[in-house]
């Protein structure tokens, strides 16, 4: 396939794109198309259109049940993969949406906790939920920034050599601040440190980090639990 003619002649471009999607290009032609796709919007648009056009033909291939081990193999390989580009957790929209979705659960739990609460009453409560399923895992109670307590609701475990690190971030803060390392299923009182006053909607979360905590001072591992502060009236 002549590149020059394909660039000028729309019909040649369509044929090139169509054969690329069909899969009939020889190895060198195919490599050429792949290379051009990165910087040739016309070819890219033609290929995209052919992909959509021909897609229903894939139904001519009968489904084949994968062997039971295939998914675990994929899952193992994922462990070595770095997703690109990665967005810091505090900028991830879905996480915030998930955290807000936990609001109802939070207020229900809050009502229960208030009934059993000793003075001084907490002024803020946070229910930390697992990002995927919104299952509540921890509750944070705080009367002020100097008295923050983390209470486990379940018996979650952490892989060998890993720890949970507790973080918080106010809405105007540039980055999260570490509140220390947490042992699974154990109550934790945050040591006094110089934190700005607590605010409604302040984010709290637990990430999985290597033993000793995040080496960068910012969360690096996956978010295990996350939630926002609710002000108790």
């Amino acid at each position, binding site marked *: 396939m002549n590149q020059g003619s394909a660039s000028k002649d729309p019909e040649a471009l369509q044929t090139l794109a169509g054969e690329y999607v069909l*899969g009939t290009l020889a190895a060198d032609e*195919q490599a050429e198309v792949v290379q051009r796709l990165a910087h040739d919007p016309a070819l890219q648009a033609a290929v995209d259109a052919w992909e959509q056009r021909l897609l229903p033909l894939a139904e*001519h291939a009968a489904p084949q049940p*994968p062997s039971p081990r295939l*998914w675990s193999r994929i899952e193992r390989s994922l462990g070595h993969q770095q997703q690109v580009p990665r967005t810091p957790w505090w900028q991830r929209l879905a996480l915030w949406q998930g955290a807000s979705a936990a609001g109802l659960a939070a207020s229900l739990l809050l009502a229960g906790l208030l009934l059993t609460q000793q003075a001084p009453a907490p002024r803020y409560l946070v229910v930390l939920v697992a990002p995927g399923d919104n299952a509540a895992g921890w509750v944070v109670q705080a009367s002020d920034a100097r008295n923050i307590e983390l209470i486990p609701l379940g018996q979650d475990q952490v892989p060998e050599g890993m720890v949970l690190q507790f973080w918080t971030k106010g809405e105007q803060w540039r980055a999260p601040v570490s509140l220390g390392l947490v042992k699974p299923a154990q109550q934790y009182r945050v040591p006094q440190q110089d934190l700005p006053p607590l605010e409604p909607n302040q984010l709290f979360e637990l990430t999985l980090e290597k033993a000793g905590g995040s080496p960068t001072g910012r969360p690096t591992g996956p978010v295990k639990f996350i939630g926002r502060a609710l002000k108790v009236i």
Partner: protein
Amino acid sequence: MNLPAPPFDFQVCLAACAQGDRRALQALYDHEGARLLGVARRIARDHATAEDILHDAFIRIWTGAASFDPARGSARGWVYSITRHLALNFVRDTRRETPLDDHEVTAVASLFAGFDEPQLWTGSARINRCVEQLQPAPQRCILHAYVDGCSHAEIAGLLGAPLGTVKAWIKRSLQALRECMA
């Protein structure tokens, strides 16, 4: 074969994958894995190889989910094109560019027997109607290429047609399909 498409939001799924949600990837695997494996299996013609391809496809879906651009096409199409191109690259690297011998033609042709079954053409997709309007030989060229990942030379062997004729059929069929779908 016309598979019903249960409601599954591929785009939401990819967005969740891009945010590191492994459960979203697993949901995609549970929902579409068998169909994607079927696609890879037809092209690779070997189950174990097809599973290797599906494995690589899911890793690529996971690492590349953030680069999916809905303006360029459907999320489902993106997932299929990753899988198909991995399978096509595999056969391109391993299969030679010469016509099949008689023994191979018989073996490969038996895989394709399904194309002559009328129920294959009950699909509601417009592309099926358009392919149906092609002459029988060009029709088989398109399907052997797309579904079976056959090269020009392999199709020539299967159809007992000269290589140049097969290339011309495919080129003309692509033009006809594009006009038919316009």
